[in-house]
Structures are given as structure tokens and as C-alpha cells.
């Protein structure tokens, strides 16, 4: 019973946090662009803006194109959102504060998060819209290519800690965080970050949603709450990426003096803001350049880091 309450609490908590992350992004971006972000709803900081957005999306008309396939069309947003939310089940939020302490935690995360790809393609294909299909194909291409370096980069902390269990990985880092390991830590973090950004279809890799060419990409025919699902899925994915990076490379909830929850929250916040900063400063990379980068640069680099991790462990 307590498990049920616990999981519902985590679910609710994550959803609320994701909603407020959209506000954080808008405020942060506007400060970068020398303007003030949302202000009026919930004066003076705009803290009711996400509530207003959610209400607006709830009351919008649900439009389904007549040529679209209704079952697949309706199922796609769920298939995109659900795997992302499932990732949060294995993340340790503090000492002994984890919902499902799986022994294969890292494998579970990688496997589940690649299911979103199917949802994206379902959305694109069922929309029967030329732009959506083009964007869906680009998305599939990109996400498959970046799975490989992502998995290899995630293996480095696993090798160093000797276990796939996330609590164990955090416990192993109580002396030195993995990011501080010379060369090995920084390189593998870099590979991980770039691959995760590409997986989340995030700038500079968001060619699939490039609205300067394909208006909103695969989401173009969605409106109302289904669009909200896609939107939430993107931010939840980013939050998951920040959590996973904090745990695998930055020592999770470990840290002196301050309570563990505060450390984890600040690391996640720092990583999330870093990802936002990248988005609002760089221009988009073209698809064939993205794929070339993945296969010609990131993949060899991840193999090198794997080798270095092995050598480190043997020493």
C-alpha cells in the first residue's frame, strides 16, 4: 500500500515539477534575451503561468484530421509520455528513497527511454501530413544513431562502479564524483550529454521540430491535451536526463554538510539550466551533419572512453 502511495506521490510531484520547468525555461530564456518573461499571470513572477497554460490546453478543441488513422493517432501521445515517466521509478532521490531499487537500473532506463521513438513515429505516420512524415523519418534516423553513443557512455560509470544499480553507483561516488576522473570522466560526460540532447530532440539537434522548415514537425496535427502530452514528454525527458546525469556522473545525492535532497536538487537544476543555455544560444545543425557527427565522432569517442574505463578499473 505504501508503495502505491509513494508511486502516486512521485508521479504527481514529477508532473508538477515538469510544469514549472516550462516556466523556468521561459524566464531563463527571456533573461538571456534581455527581456522579462511571463509576468502577469501570478504577478509579479508569473508563477501561475503553467496553470494557465494547462487550463488553456484542456479546453481546446480536439482536432483529428479526417485522413488520419484515429487509433494510432490517439495512442501516440501516450506512447511518448509513458516511458519517460516510467524512468522516474528507479531514480534514487535520496538515501533509501527510491521507489524500485532495480539491480539493472541503468539498463532499465536506457531500454525504456528508447520506446519514445516508437511513439514519435506513430504520431508522424498517422498524421498523414507530408511535413509530419518527413519530420518523423528524421526523428527515427537521429534517435537511432544516438542510441549507440548514449549506451556506451552510460556504461562507463557502470564499469567503474561495478554494478548497474543506481544506488550502488551513487554510493561508489562518495569519495570522488565520476566527473572528476581525469580525462575519462569529462569525456564520457560530454558524450553522454550530447547523445542525450540528441535523443531528446533538443537544440542544437531539434531538426525534427524545426519550425523554420517543417512547422512543428511530427506534432503538427495535434492540438489540445495531446499536444500538451508531447510538450510534457519533452520536458520530462530533459528532467530525466538531468537526473540520470547527476546520478551517473555527479555523485547523485552525495555531498558534504547539506542534506542529500538539496544536493540532488541543485545538481539537477544546474544541469537543466546548462541544457537550457545551450538551447538558447546555438543555431540548429542540419540532419546529415548530425548523423555524421554521431557515427564519425561520438561513436569512436565512446569506444575510447569505454577502453579507458576498462584500463582504469584494472589498474
Amino acid at each position, binding site marked *: 500500500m505504501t508503495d502505491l502511495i509513494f508511486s502516486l506521490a512521485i508521479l504527481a510531484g514529477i508532473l508538477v515539477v515538469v510544469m514549472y520547468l516550462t516556466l523556468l525555461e521561459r524566464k531563463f530564456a527571456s533573461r538571456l534575451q534581455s527581456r522579462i518573461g511571463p509576468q502577469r499571470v501570478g504577478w509579479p513572477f508569473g508563477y501561475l503561468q503553467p496553470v494557465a497554460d494547462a487550463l488553456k490546453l484542456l479546453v481546446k478543441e480536439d482536432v483529428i484530421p479526417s485522413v488520419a488513422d484515429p487509433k494510432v493517432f490517439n495512442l501516440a501521445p501516450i506512447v511518448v509520455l509513458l516511458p519517460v515517466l516510467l524512468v522516474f521509478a528507479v531514480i534514487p532521490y535520496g538515501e533509501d528513497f527510491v521507489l524500485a531499487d532495480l539491480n539493472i537500473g541503468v539498463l532499465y532506463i536506457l531500454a525504456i527511454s528508447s520506446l519514445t521513438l516508437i511513439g514519435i513515429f506513430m504520431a508522424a505516420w498517422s498524421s498523414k501530413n507530408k511535413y509530419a512524415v518527413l519530420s518523423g523519418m528524421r526523428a527515427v534516423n537521429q534517435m537511432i544513431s544516438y542510441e549507440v553513443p548514449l549506451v556506451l557512455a552510460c556504461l562507463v560509470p557502470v564499469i567503474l562502479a561495478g554494478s548497474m544499480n543506481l544506488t550502488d553507483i551513487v554510493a561508489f561516488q562518495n569519495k570522488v564524483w565520476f566527473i572528476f576522473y581525469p580525462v575519462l570522466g569529462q569525456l564520457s560526460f560530454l558524450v553522454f550529454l550530447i547523445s542525450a540532447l540528441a535523443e531528446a530532440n533538443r*537544440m542544437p539537434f*531539434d531538426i525534427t521540430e524545426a519550425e*523554420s522548415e517543417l512547422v512543428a514537425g511530427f506534432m503538427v496535427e495535434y492540438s489540445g491535451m495531446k499536444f500538451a502530452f508531447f510538450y510534457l514528454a519533452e520536458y520530462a525527458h530533459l528532467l530525466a536526463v538531468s537526473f540520470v546525469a547527476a546520478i551517473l556522473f555527479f555523485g547523485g545525492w552525495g555531498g558534504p554538510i547539506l542534506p542529500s535532497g538539496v544536493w540532488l536538487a541543485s545538481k539537477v537544476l544546474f544541469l537543466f539550466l546548462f541544457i537550457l543555455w545551450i538551447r538558447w544560444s*546555438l*543555431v540548429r545543425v*542540419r540532419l546529415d551533419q548530425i548523423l555524421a557527427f554521431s557515427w564519425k565522432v561520438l561513436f569512436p569517442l565512446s569506444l575510447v572512453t569505454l577502453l579507458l574505463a576498462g584500463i582504469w578499473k584494472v589498474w
Partner: protein
Amino acid sequence: MTNATNLTAEAYHPLQTQLEKEGDTLLINMGPQHPSTHGVLRIVLKLKGEVVIEAEPVIGYLHRGFEKLAENLTYIQIIPLVDRMDYIAPVTNELVFCLAVEKLLKVEIPKRAAYLRVLTAELQRVASHLVWLGTYGLDLGGALGGGSTLFLYCFREREIILDLFEELTGARMMYNFNQIGGVRYQPPDGFETRVKQMIKKLEQAIVEYQQMLEDNYVFQVRTKNIGVLTPKLGKAIGAEGPVLRGSGLKYDLRKEEPYSSYEEFQFNIPTGDKGDCFDRSSVRIREMKESLKIVKQAIEGLPEGYISARPAVRVAQAVKPPEGEVYARIESPRGELGVYLVSDGSPKPYRLKWRAPSFSNLALLPHLVVGHKLADIMAILGSLDPVFGEVDR
């Protein structure tokens, strides 16, 4: 030499939205409403996968019948109308029209007016290039992302220039500043200090933007070797300005046929060497710096005197050039802006042809995008910098 398209007549019908798929080529329409085309432009594309085989721009969505209107208005009345052609750089439009009429009338304008014309024309060039830079960021980076940051920064700097124009002429966009025989407004008190402050601020900003763009690996990768223009094709189409200078040809009308006392100013002409999008972009950014130099020289050396060679016009029919025809041209931020004027001695022109640089620049699009990918079309279109008020007139 011409890119004769084989797209059938039906493909051009605007109601044809679901276009067919023949073989493995895809016929797609980048419609007139689009977040990123710089105005209303429709491009009919034939794609094979992601590679463009053929492209045909369809224009005319902003056609307002300017040339026909001009045959029915007196010369004084045409000046505010001419502002609306290239609405990003209105002062240059007025300038070329006034030069054409002054050539027919054989009027000498006073030195102070000439310097004020140069001052406003170069300020306008900087403002126009800032708009280009901001929208180019939007094209490449998206309205939600790094592009919009660059867009907002550029428009913030442009506000400083627009404030100066507002002090000088009272308007932020359609100035109605150049008149036949000179200019209309005197600079107010303290104008010189404010211009110098602006120059200092903008010089720093432009250096920053140059670094933000040119040293940025992602920007280089998106624009190098994309849309390479050979000088031969550029000249045959009639492209000039940063488009042709990016291909290495050092030709600038301000140096070749100086008008309005440009020969008294010192400035360089930046050129590129390969003619790809990156070269055109870097030429425009360097041109901004040169324009600021000219503005500084103009404001410091502003001579005293009258601002117009003719008394203020009381009757609209007062300007009656003799019979004849003339072609006047200037260097607008986009290229060679020309006015071909045929007069029959009446207060209204007999024929006014507006030679718009964006029209010729846009004709390059079908030639440049062939063989590139869908994502490059925006980069190429942005680097040509079309303004659809000019293209469609």
C-alpha cells in the same frame, strides 16, 4: 543558362495543396504562409529524399501596382509612396528617386544636404543589415532557440538607430526625409553626441555578433559551401551588392559612380572569396563596420548651409522636369537599386520603372538550391536577403 523548369502548370495553381508523388520524387510546396520565408513567398520544390532537384519561387503576393500608381501622382506625392517599396531601408528608396528627378531637373544640391543624405543612408544600411542578421538567426536557429536570442539582440541595437531617426525625422519607419533638391529636416541639438554614443555602442556589439556567428562552429557548418555563386552567374542575373561581393567581385556603386558626395569619404569594400552563404554573411557584417566609419566622418564633417536647393514646395504641381529619360542608381543594402524615369514635361511621371535588387537576387534561388538539402534552402534564401516589398512592388 536559364533554369527551365519542367514543373507542370498545375503545380503552380495555389489551390493545389496535396501534390502528387511521381516515382521517388516528392513535389512539395513551401507555402506563402511560413514561419521563415522573409515575407510572402511560395516555393514549389521537387525533392528526392531530402535533396532538392528543382525549385521555383512564386512571387506576386505583395504586388501593389506601384508603377501604375506612380503614373498618376505628382513627384512630390510619389516620395512617401516610394518609402514602402523596400520597407527595411526606406531612406535609400527616397534617395534614388530624388537623384533621378534631380538629374532630369539638373539641380545641384547643397553640401550639407548631401552629407545628411550620406549619414542617413549609412545609418539605414546598418539598421537593414541588423534586421538581416536577426532574421538569419531565426532562419537557422528557429524561433524558439538560439536564433531568437540573436534576433532580439539585433533588434535591441536597431532600436538605438531608430531612436536617432525618430529625433531627426519624427518617424521610425517611413521617414519621408529626402526631398527633391535636398532633405527636409535639420538635425536637432545634441544630435552629434548621440550619434557618437551610438557608434561606440554598435561597434562593440558588432564585434560580439561577428564572434557569435563567424567563430561559431555550428554556423560555419551550416553555411560554408552552401549556395556557392559564381561571379559569372551573378552578373548574368543582375545580382549586385553583398551577394556579388561575396563571390569576390570588388564592385560597389558608392566607389564606382559616387553620388551625393560619397567620393569625400574614406571606406573599404569588403569582399568574400568563394561565394557561399558564409562569405555573404561575413561581407554584410564587415559592411556594417565600414558604414559606422562613414557615419562618423559624416557627422564630424557636417558643413553648414542650406538643406535644400529649392524653396519649400507650396503647390504639388510645381516640380515639372523637362522631357527626357534618365536612369539613376545607388548602392542599397541589397544591391543596385535603380530608377528609370521617363518624363513628358508634366508634373506626373510618364513611366517610372523601379529596378529592385531583391528581384534579381531572388531569381538566383532556383540556380543555387539545386543539389542541396531541404534545410539549406532557408540558409540560402536568408543569405540573399530579399525584401518582398521590392520584389513584388
